[in-house]
């Protein structure tokens, strides 16, 4: 748990969380080991979990017709799925371990209980979400060419 705590504290997502809340979160989070090929969640599934990768590599996949195409890889230290913590969100992708990996999992159920217990975290979470979204789109804007511009604009939704 002590290790979990230190890892979570480093994440920008939980930056302003009160000490006790993040401690509880670290306590409730679970570590699991995945073998290569294990699926964390499938397309369409509302898995309701966020993952911090402790070791190994995961692949985000998108099914088209019969084949799955790789969207991108995630590596040690990446934190993903934070949006699923807020509420129902059926996944548009599948997540699969490509090597033997360990992940730290935070579930929506736990997260919701913590928000309930520490009402002041609600605002912080919202702020973190907006920041995340903003950064993501800014990064995309600098990387994509103009042909794809009409596919972005999540921040003006």
């Amino acid at each position, binding site marked *: *748990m*002590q290790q*979990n705590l230190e890892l979570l504290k480093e994440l920008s997502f939980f930056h302003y969380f009160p000490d*006790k809340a993040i*401690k*509880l979160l670290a*306590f*409730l989070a*679970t570590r*699991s*080991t*995945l*073998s290569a090929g*294990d*699926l*964390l969640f*499938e*397309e*369409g*599934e509302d898995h309701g979990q966020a993952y911090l990768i402790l070791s190994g590599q995961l692949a985000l996949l998108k099914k088209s017709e019969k084949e799955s195409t790789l969207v991108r890889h995630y590596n040690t230290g990446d934190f993903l799925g934070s949006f699923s913590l807020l509420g129902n969100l059926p996944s548009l992708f599948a997540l699969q371990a490509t090597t033997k990996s360990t992940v730290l999992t935070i579930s929506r*159920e*736990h997260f919701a*209980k913590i928000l*309930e*217990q520490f009402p002041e975290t609600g605002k912080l979470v919202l702020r973190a979400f907006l920041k995340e979204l903003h950064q993501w789109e800014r990064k995309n804007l600098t990387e994509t060419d103009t042909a794809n511009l009409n596919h972005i604009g999540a921040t003006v939704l």
Partner: protein
Amino acid sequence: MKDWSMKHGKPPTPVTEKSLLYWAFSGNLKLQLILLVVIILIVVARVIPLEMQKRIINDSIALQNLQGLFFYCAIYILAITVASALKLAINYLQALIGERAMTAMRKTLYNHILTLPLNFFRTTQPGTVVSSLMTELSTAGNFAGMAFAVPVSNILTLVAFTGYLIWLNSKLALATLIIYPAVVFIIPLLQKKANKANKKRVDLSRETSSQIAESISGIHEIQVHGAYSQEGSKFDRLAEKLKKIRIRWSLFRFGIKTANNYFVGLGPFVVFVYGGYLVMHGQLELGAMVAFLSAQEKLFDPWKELIEFYQAYQDASVSYTRTMNCFDATPEFALDFADSPVLRLNGRIEVRDLVYDTPEGLRLLNGVSFSLQTGEHLAIVGFSGGGKSTLIQCLGKMFPYSSGSIQFDALELSTLSKQTIIGNVGYVSQNPFIFTGTIEENLLYAQKALGSPAIPPEGGEANIDRDRMILVLQQVGLFVDVMRFGLDSQIGSDDRLVIEKIIRIRRRFHENFGEKLADYVEFYNRDTYHVNSSVAENILFGTGNRADFDYPLLPDNNSFRSFLLSVNLLEPLLTLGIELAGQAVDLLAGVDKVDLFFRNSPVPADRIEECERILNRLRKHPVTSLPRGQQSFLLSLALNFTPAIHTMTRLPDSLKKNILSARQAFPKWSESIAEDLFTFYSDTSYIPGQSILNNIFFGRIRPALPHAQEVMNQAIMHLLVEEDFLEKVAAIGMASQVGNMGDRLSGGQRQKLAIARVLMKQPKIILMDEATSALDNKSQARIQRLMTTRWSGNRTVIAAVHRLDIINTFDKIAVMKAGKLVELGTYRELIEQKGILHELIYGRK
């Protein structure tokens, strides 16, 4: 609206319109007759002592006739004894009739309530039903017991005593009896007021019960919002009102009693004044006057009882009519289990211009038409509030439709008996209700309701065998879960054959999967520390064979403590206990006692405060100064500590080493206490007190993702089949309890069980109202496969569906909006049409 209740001859009077007296006599006629005979006997036995009194004074005492005195006294005592015995008999008979009447009332009314239309329950709180059936009917039941006995016996006694008085002296008798008519005028006046108060009381108690029921069923919301005072004040207001009305009611009741007592008390006064005058003038004998006084007094008892009876009658009829009025609705559909033919349908469905209006006048379905051939599958999609559920429920005959027609096999739904519907139509709701009991009981629930083999199952096989249940469980994808329940159960250690089998499976498991599954299972090994087992288990590496060496009792066991001391573990473990208590307090003190937070806590929620007290004390005093109970508590924390579960604290390596050497020393020590005190883990013997699964593994599962569980399930299932052990485990699994209303099952498991429950009765028509909404993708796909391979062309399916990614396997899709069918066709047609379905799936362009 159509006439839904089909009439077969003259309909019986509905239960709610039966009079209170009906219950006293129906079915109790014989008892009431016996009662009448006893009553006549007791009246005779009551008059005799009066006459004896007169004779004792006039014939024996006055004439100094000793023999006569004894003779009359003997008759006197005999009469009194007989009267008492008879009174007991009357009370017994009364109670018997009362209980029988009340039970009959309860049963009939309850069965009536169960058949009431669903609309009725929207406006009725469960609390009302509970208090009506349990509390208010008991008043009525008590009354039913006395409805005949009390008035008859008391009126007879009154008549007998009055007759006797008139026979003694008609003038004096008339003078004393003049009081009673006065009473007859005043009492009903008071009673009317008491009745009014009582009516209010009944209504108010009912309101209060509903309030309680509402608060308790919404307890989550109340606690989450901290609305204690809000709910409290609601209740307080009602309780205060109830108090006031009850006081008023009591006042009138006692007023009646007092008025009655007062008037009757005037009786002796008349006897003394007028009787004394008559005696002085020689018109009355002294003995007769004494008899008169007694009779006068005795007159009072039956009179008082009659008045009380009158009150009880009024109270009872108030509660009774209020209760019955409350449930005075007629079932929408005749159940006619017995006399209407139960048809076997093919599953063709034709719906024309279907309209449904709620009783409040809201139009939920507005001219829906479609038709399906046998075995066709229709998916209903659309916006929420579009009428999907209403349509499904109309098809299941849960509501009567307002106009239009629904035909199954060209037969109008309204003419089909409910029994035919129950036998042919399966309905699965989104939030299925699972009953408290075992999985098997829930599985057979719908099928049992069919009762007699009115419709023999398709195979012609009447008895439901286990194979069929297993098949259905496999079809809906619940079998793995059931196996899991079975594997997680324990079996008695005396089942030799099973144990041998398990050991055999264990050996094969280790041969085949030992290495492969080492990541998922922590196998037992005498030389390594097991982080998925508790400290105590790590020390013992076995289970106690005597009750006082059970794990929970170890911290208090003196000889075990001395063992810990001898291997230098007592102090480190106490320190570990303090550490655990400290961590738990640091993390969890002050947070709500939510199960979720405490699931992985070494300290249970209700012991956190105790930890705080202990830690406070330890700041100033050494651990040895703690009272014995608190030391044991700390020790129990340490002994229960399981690093893989209680992640808040780490177990120091030095302590691990220490524990491992204690494990080596333990068997020798246990031998020194008594032989066979413990059974030590060994890969050739069964571990009692642990689940079948742990026994097969000879180890414990590491907490892991559900996907890992699947890998293990497959491995084990395979072995179980080979060892012919699968059915046994499945049977154990099916016999496991689902918890209170199924709360031990997940949402998906509950839905699967609900689908399985419907499949067990093999209906031709299956109605599903978002029946798979809680299922994960795999389970969803499995049901999908079941529909396309097994049901297609065979069972007609109508499913309200929320998830649009699963509808392409349906034969037809219907899109509903505001109570209307706006699109109907095959998936391909509708997508090519680029209408509403296209918009729903791909979004607005």
